[in-house]
């Protein structure tokens, strides 16, 4: 077999894994890899302007495409800048492979220039990581990294490659398949458990599906839609699951949790059988755990056994891939005639939906963020939506009608500000020319990775960025308003940059928007533009995200919007 360099091996592995796009940033220790990238023709390399952006872009690429996202960075600070991106992908179980360069083996441990214990730092933020000590290990490690990232409960894998390994020659023996003695994910649900689960479904009077990000990760939307339809069991979705069911499905009670709908939270509180499907009982969903679904038997379906009974004790665990388990359940259900009596339960929930629907008071004086989001949905109904973190994220989750899985990419578990601008670029590269990508971002978070407008311009990646600008760190301001006597400590952002000039400075288009007509007209222009656009939309400064469950409270105790025409 022929001998090739470690750098060539990296590129060959990306070719073998059919990687089309790599996000990265070069540096001293990564020079050999980048010299190889200079001549290879297998994948497109996108030069971001900050390593954190490389990870967020690769992350959204993975979320939108269902493929693995890949990033390459240099040693030391190049690597440390990726930690937020790794943590974000880890929290949301997103398949990523990060390749970082390291100083040469002979320099490791000497505090050499741009040396850092990269695997030591990344360990808590990744599914697995490797330091490649010699060239013979590299083909196996590269293959294992892609396998681990994309199998079982997906997640980021980090490979740290010393510079001498990237230069060394070794035999290119890339494994076709991987068998690991210590890692064997279980995909199929236990048949006996599935049978019992079906019996529970048939017996329940007030059953409820609680859908999480695992439904999206395992591409189980079709099966879940069928299951909901034939059982007539209602469902709530987490932020990470939005789009699994159509937003206009009458059985979809919408998002649950801290900013969930009244009907969703009441359903969680009153159900007698809660079927958690790829969800992990995050504190933003459960609120006070002792009050959460306390009348219900809990069925917990998850590919990760360590998620089961971690927070809420599961009476009935099923370990397996969501798509497999739901398919098995459908097969079992269809074996005989069945009828699940949910009519009375559905009527109760309908009353809750009518009592407090997600709503807001519109205004002609000042733009309401909810109106902007709904208008965007009218003008670009099938757009892929990216959000940053904060109030705008929750308004989008509440008011954008998500109708298909992978329509939304957002930082759920970590809530990483600065996510959305680079993520929008990764998303656009994943979905291609024909699809519209809209990034909702706050006036605080947009500044955290705004330099990526330069990347958008350089590569002609066309996305529409909408700043919902309330001149506040809005969500923190909301908490200060409700729980800290309106002490707006360090959240007032009314001294503002000229966002239009910033956009133009990076070669993009920018518009300041204060009225509904201005928004409609600018958004239409953005849809037809060949350039990335930044719409700086001035919204009501003191609009709150409601309903809201105060942190640690029971989820049935919601602060609800006060509506003038409320009966």
């Amino acid at each position, binding site marked *: 077999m022929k001998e090739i360099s470690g750098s060539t091996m990296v590129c060959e592995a990306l070719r073998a894994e059919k990687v089309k796009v790599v996000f990265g940033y070069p540096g001293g220790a990564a020079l050999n890899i980048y010299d190889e990238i200079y001549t290879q023709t297998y994948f497109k390399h996108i030069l971001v302007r900050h390593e954190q952006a490389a990870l967020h872009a690769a992350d959204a690429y993975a979320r939108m495409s269902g493929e693995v996202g890949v990033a390459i960075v240099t040693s030391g600070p190049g690597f440390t800048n990726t930690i937020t991106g790794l943590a974000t992908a880890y929290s949301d179980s997103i398949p990523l492979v990060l390749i970082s360069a390291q100083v040469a083996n002979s320099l490791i441990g000497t505090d050499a220039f741009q040396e850092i214990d990269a*695997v*030591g730092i990344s*360990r*808590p933020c990744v*599914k*697995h990581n490797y*330091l490649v*000590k010699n060239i013979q290990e590299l083909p196996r490690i590269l293959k294992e990294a892609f396998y*681990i990232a994309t199998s079982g409960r997906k997640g980021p894998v980090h490979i740290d490659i010393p510079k001498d390994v990237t230069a060394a020659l070794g035999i290119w023996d890339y494994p076709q398949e991987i068998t*690991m*003695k*210590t*890692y064997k994910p279980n995909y199929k649900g236990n048949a006996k458990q599935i049978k019992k689960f079906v019996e529970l479904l048939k017996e329940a009077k007030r059953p409820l599906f609680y859908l999480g990000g695992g439904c999206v990760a395992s591409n189980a939307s079709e099966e879940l839609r069928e299951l909901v339809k034939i059982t007539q069991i209602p469902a709530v979705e987490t932020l990470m699951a939005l789009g699994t069911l159509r937003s206009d499905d009458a059985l979809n009670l919408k998002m649950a949790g801290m900013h969930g709908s009244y009907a969703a939270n009441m359903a969680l509180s009153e159900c007698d059988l809660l079927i958690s499907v790829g969800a992990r009982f995050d504190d933003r969903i459960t609120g006070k755990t002792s009050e959460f679904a306390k009348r219900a038997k809990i069925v917990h379906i998850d590919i*990760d*056994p*360590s998620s*089961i*009974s*971690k927070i809420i*004790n599961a009476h009935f665990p099923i370990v397996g891939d969501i798509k497999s388990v739901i398919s098995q359940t459908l097969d079992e259900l269809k074996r005989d005639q069945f009828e699940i009596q949910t009519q009375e339960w559905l009527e109760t929930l309908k009353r809750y939906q009518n009592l407090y629907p997600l709503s807001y008071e519109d205004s002609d004086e000042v733009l309401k963020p909810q109106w902007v989001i709904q208008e965007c949905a009218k003008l670009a109904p099938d757009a892929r939506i990216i959000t940053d973190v904060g109030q705008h994220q929750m308004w989008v989750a509440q008011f954008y009608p998500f109708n298909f899985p992978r329509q939304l990419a957002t930082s759920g578990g970590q809530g990483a500000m600065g996510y959305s601008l680079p993520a929008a670029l990764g998303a656009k590269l994943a979905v291609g020319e024909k699809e519209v990508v809209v990034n909702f971002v706050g006036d605080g978070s947009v500044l955290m990775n705004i330099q990526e407008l330069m990347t958008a311009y350089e590569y002609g990646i066309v996305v529409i960025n909408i700043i919902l600008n309330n001149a506040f760190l809005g969500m923190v301001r909301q908490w200060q308003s409700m729980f800290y006597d309106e002490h707006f400590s360090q959240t007032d952002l009314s001294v503002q940059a000229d966002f239009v000039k910033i956009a133009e400075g990076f070669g993009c288009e920018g518009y300041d928007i204060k009225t509904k007509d201005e928004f409609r007209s600018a958004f239409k222009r953005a849809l037809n533009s060949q350039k990335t656009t930044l719409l700086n939309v001035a919204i009501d400064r003191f609009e709150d995200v409601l309903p809201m469950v105060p942190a640690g409270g029971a989820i049935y105790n919601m602060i609800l919007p006060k509506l003038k025409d409320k009966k």
Partner: protein
Amino acid sequence: MRRVLSVIVLNEHGVLSRIVGLFSGRGYNIDSLTVAPLAGGEFSRINIVTSGDERVFEQIVKQLHKLIPTYKVIESEEFIEKEMALVKIPLNENLGGLDAVLKAYNGVIANSNENFLFLMVADDATRIDNFLKTIKKYNPSDIVRSGSVLMEIK
């Protein structure tokens, strides 16, 4: 509640850090830890004494399983558990009765020089506690105690 378990892991670079990091990162306690490669060298056995209620222990076991290099987590109800203690006693102490104490605890004189006797005892944790209390009267100048070594009975 005191808990003991053994973890069989791939004998590779950084694996101990992963285990220890899991405990520290999730706020679990490690009371003692012993590690050595198994015959053949491909795997290592990590013996851990920890504490926590049923729920915490269940999570510890699940999280250990989740680590990629973990081959097996052994949580037997019936382990043989042994610790070792080394004790350094000045020779100028009155050593009367030392033989009887060593005999009672299956201890031996492991070494000696012109100034000290070096005692070695291997027993379960409670008996090691008792031995160390008893040996105090000889004014030991140093005591070193190992973590638990475990072997499942079934």
